[in-house]
């Protein structure tokens, strides 16, 4: 008689305990992004921090994702009020510089901040090799499903979001993701646009 009751109670209790136990293993702060594997949302944003060397873009220049067809693009969302952004800044700047000759485009996207603060922050941090753009009313951030900074998006030559990194990005992550994306050929019809090729001053021998 008693074992019957125990069995009936177990049938009810065990699934609930298992369900709660499963819930304990999950981090409620971790939001799964549906973006990786999908077409990267297009954007057209104005430069406020120019970057230097071959990555230089003039203030006010419009950066359009459509101009980077067939190229690997890294978008790093950041803000001057973001403490974790300080941790990744020098790494990003250095890695961007070393991958620029390979055609990888790095852009910082200022999130929920004003360009004046952004420029001051970059100067404080000792400069930034790649340009940063402003995102008025955080429209692009929302388009990328952002929920905090820093977040870094890797866009492949096929124009799709290949990977999204939440929190400060490390040199190892950047190098491994970029190397794997560069190893993939550009799909047919996705060759770099003419003007973005011109902007990269890598010496070529020509035919």
């Amino acid at each position, binding site marked *: 008689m008693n074992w019957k009751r125990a069995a009936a109670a177990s049938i009810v209790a065990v699934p609930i305990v298992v369900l709660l136990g499963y819930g304990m293993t999950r981090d409620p702060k971790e*939001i*799964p*992004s549906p*973006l990786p594997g999908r077409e990267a949302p297009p954007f057209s944003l104005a430069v406020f921090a120019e970057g230097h060397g071959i990555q230089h873009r003039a203030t006010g220049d419009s950066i359009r994702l459509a101009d980077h067809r067939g190229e690997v693009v890294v978008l790093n969302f950041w803000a001057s009020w973001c403490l974790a952004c300080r941790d990744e800044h020098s790494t990003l700047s250095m890695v961007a510089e070393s991958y620029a000759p390979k055609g990888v485009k790095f852009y910082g996207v200022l999130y929920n901040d004003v360009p004046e603060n952004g420029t001051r922050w970059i100067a404080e941090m000792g400069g930034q090799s790649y340009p940063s753009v402003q995102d008025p*009313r955080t429209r692009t951030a*929302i388009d990328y499903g*952002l929920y905090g900074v820093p977040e870094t998006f890797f866009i492949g030559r096929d124009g799709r979001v290949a990977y999204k990194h939440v929190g400060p990005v490390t040199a190892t992550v950047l190098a491994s993701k970029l190397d794997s994306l560069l190893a993939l050929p550009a799909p047919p019809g996705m060759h770099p646009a003419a003007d973005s090729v011109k902007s990269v001053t890598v010496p070529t021998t020509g035919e």
Partner: protein
Amino acid sequence: MTMRPQSVTRDWLRRGSVIAVLVAGGLLGAPGRGVAQEKSAPVSNDPVLEEKTRQVASELRCPVCQGNSLQDSPSELAQEMKGVVRDQLASGKTPEQVKQYFIDKYGEWILLEPKATGFNLVVYLLPLAMVGVGGVVIWRAVKKWTAAPEGMEGGG
């Protein structure tokens, strides 16, 4: 001594002007909010659009506060997202299309109430099942107690 109606009116006018000055001072004294309001999406004059925006924003989760809806969250991101809701509704999108836009960007997580499909059905059906099971247990217990009241004395 009674006040003449004219002096009562004047007194209220004076009080009214003092309140008006205080309210205006309070608004001017909060430049941060003023700037934020100006930066975020302007509120529409159309009450129907505002009501629709409020409804859709109440069903979407704020990515920053997580427990709050876009409607209830004071975070700037939530306010901007509410602006996107308003803009998309104003451009002729249906509430379902607007919600789908946010699901495409943030996943189904963004819905405060999960869709009643697939595994999500557990959330909707489990409480009902538990109420059913509980009802059966109580019903059987009550039946037992009422059938043999003398044997259940002190058994609680």
